[in-house]
């Protein structure tokens, strides 16, 4: 291949049901492109004689062997990549095994492919599987497919069979954006793979290889103006600040006006720096380092774009989500989201529907299990510049990462921004409680846990906080320990001191709610009047009283800290429940009857309450 002027690289994915001949086809392409060496061929020929299915002929499927053994060992095989080249093009083949986890594998392979080769067995025709493969490749933005009608030798090289299959597929693909070319072939015999078949004079189209070598691809981002996510800031010394990135679309010239997003600040491109020297212009696909004439401060995650045609910015979207992990995607949970070079925090809002990939029908969905595909809304913690996935894979494709396990749990594709988010962030708001709350992406409030000593308030508070935190909420716990040791060090346990204790805790909570936080207070707070006074400091719906209701008999029996024993024996004075009264709440927002609930259930009740409350916001 002529490395200097070659028309480049074509990445494609092959899809087929088991035994349609996918391995044979790829093996044949490698063989025909003369990329197999003597030692590999010798091994192949030995293996073919031993376990091949083609008599003394080479069984190309064995070339790619290894996957079955891996499957037995439980290795996650998603995609294997194969390489071959002719003197016209270099090819990267994503080979996704078609077994369990099919969706995950295909989606991964298709995400970097520009074209798909979909195999069908000429005897079996267009199957449910074929439709599923077609759906998935079109979902990932592939517009060109080759329908490889394989094993045509087994139907007597029948033109009629081929044409009826082609017709059938065309009918079904009519309402998709797929552009299809059908080729009759025998992967095993080599007909119409790289050599024209002698058995099908009626077929006038190209061989598979001819097609792959010459197909013109209209890049999906074609037509989009200049966009480049800032990947890394190159700052070797005081006098140089360059923004490194790969140009996602369009072309940039030194001297062009650009805009930095999401800040919206305008600038001018000073130089296009590369190792070979400065360029006058650079186009999509290249990695460059840009310097600006203005001294504006950009960082990783920002996008530089053509000033007269910038992409929109938003923080709420509709998107397609594909679950890639055994842990399901749950609405209400907060994930790390990577898109372009930005990493943001994203909450999945309740799903609109999931998609049955066999029938393409919409079904109701509460969550997305591994390999399920759904459509829902996303709320980000800050605005990002984006393009709909249809127009740009680079600015519209994203992954979701679990905050605790760090696993990649979903892939997604942005559709469009939701109206309500679009105008908001351009206005400068007064920094008040609402603004801070919006910045935190949450509805602030205080969860006030009251109940007897040993009822489980602190344990519940801590567990609730953990879950809220995992969901991306900003929280703080105030309890006896961190308050009595510092702020309220001067207070004892007389009735008067208890009242003052609660007053201070209520005031501190109020400041924190004003700062936009969710505060968890776990104090015995035995007197109705004080709790009412605390409630009065907050706005409607901000004070959530949680009655952790355990019977005196129960807590005294457990007596974890030995306090009840000491109170009964008179060593502790003014102990709630023994010689000081506890006044149960009359209308707590949440009543946890601890004689009937497990700890987990109690925690879940509070978390669920907070989830609904947030969703209503």
């Amino acid at each position, binding site marked *: 291949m002529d490395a200097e002027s*070659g028309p480049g690289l074509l990445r494609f994915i092959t899809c087929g049901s088991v035994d349609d001949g996918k391995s044979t086809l790829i093996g044949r392409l490698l063989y025909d492109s003369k990329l197999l060496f003597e030692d590999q061929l010798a091994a192949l020929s030995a293996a073919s004689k031993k376990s091949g299915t083609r008599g003394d002929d080479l069984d190309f499927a064995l070339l790619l062997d290894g996957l079955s053994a891996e499957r037995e060992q439980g290795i996650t095989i998603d995609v294997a990549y194969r390489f071959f080249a002719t003197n016209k093009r270099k090819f990267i083949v994503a080979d996704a095994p078609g077994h369990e986890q099919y969706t995950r594998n295909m989606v991964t392979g298709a995400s970097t492919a520009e074209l798909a080769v979909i195999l069908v067995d000429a005897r079996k025709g267009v199957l449910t599987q074929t439709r599923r493969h077609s759906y998935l490749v079109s979902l990932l933005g592939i517009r060109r497919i080759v329908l490889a009608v394989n094993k045509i030798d087994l139907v007597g090289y029948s033109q009629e069979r081929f044409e009826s299959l082609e017709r059938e597929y065309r009918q079904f693909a009519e309402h998709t954006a797929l552009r299809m070319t059908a080729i009759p072939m025998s992967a095993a015999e080599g007909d119409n793979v790289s050599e024209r078949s002698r058995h099908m004079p009626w077929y006038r189209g190209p061989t598979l290889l001819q097609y792959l070598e010459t197909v013109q691809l209209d890049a999906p*981002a074609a037509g989009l103006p200049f966009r480049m996510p800032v*990947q*890394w800031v*190159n700052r070797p010394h005081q006098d140089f600040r360059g923004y490194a990135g*790969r140009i996602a679309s369009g072309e940039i010239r030194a001297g062009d006006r650009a805009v930095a997003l999401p800040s919206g600040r305008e600038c001018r491109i000073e130089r296009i720096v590369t*190792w070979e020297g400065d360029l006058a212009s650079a*186009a999509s696909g290249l990695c460059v380092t840009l310097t600006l004439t203005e001294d504006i401060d950009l960082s990783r995650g920002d996008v530089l774009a053509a000033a007269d045609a910038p992409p929109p910015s938003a923080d709420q979207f509709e998107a397609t989500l594909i679950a890639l992990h055994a842990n399901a995607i749950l609405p209400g949970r907060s994930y790390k989201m990577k898109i372009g070079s930005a990493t943001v925090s994203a909450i999945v809002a309740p799903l609109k529907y999931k998609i049955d990939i066999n029938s393409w029908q919409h079904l109701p969905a509460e969550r997305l299990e591994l390999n399920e595909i759904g459509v829902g809304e996303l709320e980000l913690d800050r605005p990002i510049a984006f393009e709909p996935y249809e127009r740009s*894979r680079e600015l519209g494709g994203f992954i979701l990462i679990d905050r605790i396990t760090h696993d990649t749990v979903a892939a997604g594709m942005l559709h469009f921004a939701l109206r309500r988010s679009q105008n908001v962030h351009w206005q400068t708001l007064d920094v008040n409680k609402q603004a801070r709350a919006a910045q935190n992406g949450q509805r602030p409030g205080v969860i006030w846990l009251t109940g007897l000593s040993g009822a489980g308030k602190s344990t519940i508070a801590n567990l609730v906080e953990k879950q809220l935190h995992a969901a991306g909420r900003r929280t703080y716990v105030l309890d006896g320990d961190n308050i009595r040791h510092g702020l309220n060090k001067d207070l004892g346990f007389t009735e008067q001191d208890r009242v003052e204790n609660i007053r201070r805790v209520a005031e501190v909570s109020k400041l924190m709610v004003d700062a936009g936080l969710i505060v968890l207070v776990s104090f015995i707070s035995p007197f109705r009047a004080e709790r009412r006074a605390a409630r009065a400091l907050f706005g409607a719906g901000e004070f959530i009283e949680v009655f952790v209701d355990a019977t005196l008999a129960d807590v005294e029996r457990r007596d974890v800290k030995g306090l009840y024993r000491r109170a009964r024996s008179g060593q502790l004075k003014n102990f709630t429940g023994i010689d000081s009264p506890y006044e149960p709440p009359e209308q707590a927002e949440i009543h946890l009857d601890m004689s009937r609930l497990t700890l987990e259930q109690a925690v879940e009740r509070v978390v669920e309450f907070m989830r609904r409350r947030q969703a209503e916001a």
Partner: protein
Amino acid sequence: MMTTSSLTHLQSLEAESIFIMREVVAECRKPVLLNSLGKDSAVMLHLARKAFHPAALPFPLLHIDTTWKFRAMYEYREHLARSSGMQMLVHINTEGLRQGINPITHGSQIHTDVMKTQALKQALDHYGFDAAFGGARRDEEKSRAKERIFSFRTAQHRWDPKNQRPELWTLYNTDKHNGESIRVFPLSNWTELDVWQYIRREAIPIVPLYFAAERPVVRRDGALIMVDDERLPLRPGETPERLTVRFRTLGCYPLTSAIESNATSLDEVIAELLHSSRSERHGRAIDHDDEASMEKKKQEGYF
């Protein structure tokens, strides 16, 4: 996928690799570039210089020295270490050296395990690197074909093939727990031919052993082993002969087979490769030890 249709295949591969290297530097705490002094490492180093230009390399180079490399490789290393903007770290498993581990008496498996695999783990732990670039390519052998570009290692440096993350688009998830690290393979999608064409296009300096010259060799078990210094004991009946040979891969000299060749220039090497009938790893002893050997070695922490 980028709009690659207007780029040549080498431009596309180059851009992909540079993107990957920048991503690691932007997201990882302390990366390192493993340099085996071979042609793939030379290409990686060249790509790294391009990626971060005009800044100096934002990470050091690390050579795991088994003490049995070809002399020409050590000369090349000294030359690299002297180039500006380059920090070259060298690590030897001194414990293995003390035990006298060598490829001749202990064979390729033990030697590689102690002086390469263990040595690499020692070095990574010692310096606390959380990401290491390696030059492996997916076309090298079957088990690599499905390896991710970002490949995770536990705190014990084990590869857990059951727990790999899917890689979609060019979005690489680099999040990891304390102690875990990543091996990153920027050349994953390059083939041997791509590497040679790129070396030619960019005029990248490589160890002269890749070009044919008259060298002293002995024929041993069907391989041509170069007598690079006096440490190679000759077997009864062996006498070194001077043959015109070159190497397709480089490693420890007693474990690396030469091929007879007259290719003294890049053009000739590429022409030879296009007509070659032997795969690249044919000359490496380590792959022949055991069928599933690579897979196993990787799980144990071999690069």
